[in-house]
């Protein structure tokens, strides 16, 4: 499934979509950046409640297919601009990480 196909699901709101065609390889949930650096695999969706600028470098270095901000966390305007400039896909979900993951699981991840 591509990020574009994923973003058509009602439980997700697109925040920044740069590369809609990227294939999703799985899902990782975590907020501590060193754990994400260690464990997230290329192409995975990264579900987190972190919304500061530092998530962009991590998503870029690990080549996450998209960041999903859980719990309705908002990405500040200036960080949205940076995400656009860096080509990082960001979506948001009003649900907590676990419920978001259950929805993703129903999609086959």
């Amino acid at each position, binding site marked *: 499934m591509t990020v574009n196909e994923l973003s058509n699901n009602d439980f997700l709101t697109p925040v920044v979509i740069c590369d809609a065609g990227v294939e999703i390889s799985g899902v990782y949930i975590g907020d501590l950046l*060193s754990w994400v650096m260690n464990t997230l695999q290329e192409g995975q969706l990264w579900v987190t409640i972190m919304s500061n600028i530092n998530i962009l*470098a991590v998503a870029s270095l690990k080549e996450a297919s998209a960041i999903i901000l859980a719990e309705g966390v908002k990405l500040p305007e200036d960080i949205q601009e940076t995400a656009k400039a860096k080509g990082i896909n960001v979506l948001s979900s009003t649900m907590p990480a676990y419920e978001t993951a259950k929805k993703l699981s129903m999609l086959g991840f």
Partner: protein
Amino acid sequence: MSEELKFTYNVDGEDFNSAGQASVSVKKNLRQLGIDPEIIRKVSIAMYEGEINMVIHAHGGTADVFVDDEKIGIVLSDKGPGIADISKAMQEGYSTATDTVRALGFGAGMGLPNMKRYTDYMNIESQIGEGTTITMHVKYQ
């Protein structure tokens, strides 16, 4: 590649907003050189952790990345407070990060262990009050 290539970066210690930029640049450069993606992955993780440590623990520093025909070398130098007990600092979960820094997602105490895990060689030289120099190698084979 017969000649050694070197990239140097200044890592700003006051700016949490640009933290990780040197690592992102290194990744781009290594890609352009056609370095194996698995090697780039290891270098990215190790360098990112080292770069973040210079920002959050040492008021910034410099990063030198060397590319030769056997390995990628990373040398991170700072004039920060130094590390009092290196073996303690190497333990998973050990961190002196402040609450402010933890709120950003740093301070899991997994940086130095990650650097060790993803490199083939790692050496820490540190003097209290003088600074820290960390050298890492990622070999192609």
